[in-house]
């Protein structure tokens, strides 16, 4: 197993002169499940986007190192898997095509196909894999997002609202992968759900009122 560290230092984000986030600092290493909590509108999703490198912070830095070597800030996307309500799949493609596009663009090894089938089965959408995503229900779309995020076996899995839009069967599958991720890397999730929080080793709460 590669040695991983993930550090965030004094992250701040200003949006239209308003402070959304301020002084977010923490450091993680592998085998951790890290939960971010905070009321609605406290900037959880914004923080998640910044940590994944898809939104640049106004101040502060994020440091991610794999096996001792530091990967510069926004370039570590190959190591990240993200599930977020703001992240959608291509509706005009089937589930299989979506996953194959992701695998090709990420230049994954040949075995990705077996893994993709395994994930589709685990999340119970294997029978619908040849259907275009626009015919999917929102729960099925959510499951497909998990397949997409887990396809490349990310070192850091980031989940924004892990159990939203899912039935009990889907939640069970997600929980299974959350446990697996904790053993193989870093798990990070933003939630307010009490049941989800039981999976966390550490809880970081974004305080309201510091701005």
């Amino acid at each position, binding site marked *: 197993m590669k040695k991983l560290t993930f550090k965030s230092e004094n992250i701040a984000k200003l949006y239209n002169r308003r402070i959304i986030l301020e002084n977010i600092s923490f450091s993680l290493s592998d085998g951790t499940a890290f939960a971010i909590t905070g009321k609605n509108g406290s900037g959880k999703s914004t923080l998640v*986007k910044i940590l*994944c*490198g*898809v*939104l*640049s912070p106004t101040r502060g830095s994020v440091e991610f190192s794999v096996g001792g070597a530091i990967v510069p800030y*926004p*370039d570590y*996307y190959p190591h*990240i898997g*993200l599930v*977020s309500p*703001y*992240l*959608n*799949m*291509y*509706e*005009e*493609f089937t589930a299989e*095509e979506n996953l194959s*596009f*992701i695998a*090709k*663009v*990420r*230049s994954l090894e040949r075995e990705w196909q077996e893994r993709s089938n395994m994930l589709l089965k685990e999340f119970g959408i294997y029978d619908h894999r040849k259907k275009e995503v626009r015919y999917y229900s929102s729960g099925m779309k959510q499951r497909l997002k998990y397949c*997409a995020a887990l396809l490349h076996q990310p070192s850091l899995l980031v989940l924004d609202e892990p159990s939203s839009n899912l039935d009990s069967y889907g939640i069970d599958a997600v929980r299974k992968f959350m446990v697996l991720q904790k053993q193989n890397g870093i798990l990070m999730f933003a939630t307010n759900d009490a049941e989800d929080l039981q999976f966390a080793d550490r809880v970081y709460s974004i305080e309201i009122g510091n701005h």
Partner: protein
Amino acid sequence: MMIISTSYHIFVKEFVSEFRTRYALNALLMFVVTTLSIILFSIGQESPSIDVLSGTLWIVIFFSAMSGLSRTFVAEEERGTSLTLRLLVNASSVYIGKLVYNFALILVLSVIIAVSYVLFITEFTVKTFEIFWLTILLGSAGLASASTILAAIIAKANTKGTLFPVLAFPILLPLLLTCINATKLATEGAFLVEAVKEFQILISFTVVMIATSFLVFDFVWKD
């Protein structure tokens, strides 16, 4: 050569996606048919000068490019897939993939426009076909180069509809004027060497545009 393969996969994705949804293509073909028939109606029995006809050819190409190319980034933003793409690949690959796709789209369009223009408008006689087709090719490349970065800009703006032609027109004007000039040369039966200066302008415009876009695209994409 990761960047080439990822760009290629993005290009293929764009292409297949367009083929499935026909967002742009159907509308664009209708647009071309409509504008050409308006020109044919308005010409009627008149025989306008070759200057006017060369100008209108590029006006048709400009506006069909404007309505077609603006969708590339707006569609990603509207469907919420731009975040997915940002998480998957680096900005350069996205830019190259989209640029090549835009170039292919506008090239197909302008060839269709040019062929029907030559066929239906009898007054428009091309004497030097080398110059004409080279102008179409290089003109399409220039249009695609400037439109791609502008499409990325307007995808992030709040009002997207009318913004694109407003932003694109002053930037594309040197390109369009050169294209019109080269088309005039083609209809006058000039030799290929006489249009070299025009081609040099078109090529350097495209190169400068792509190089600049490449440098600034990251700022637009990661915002």
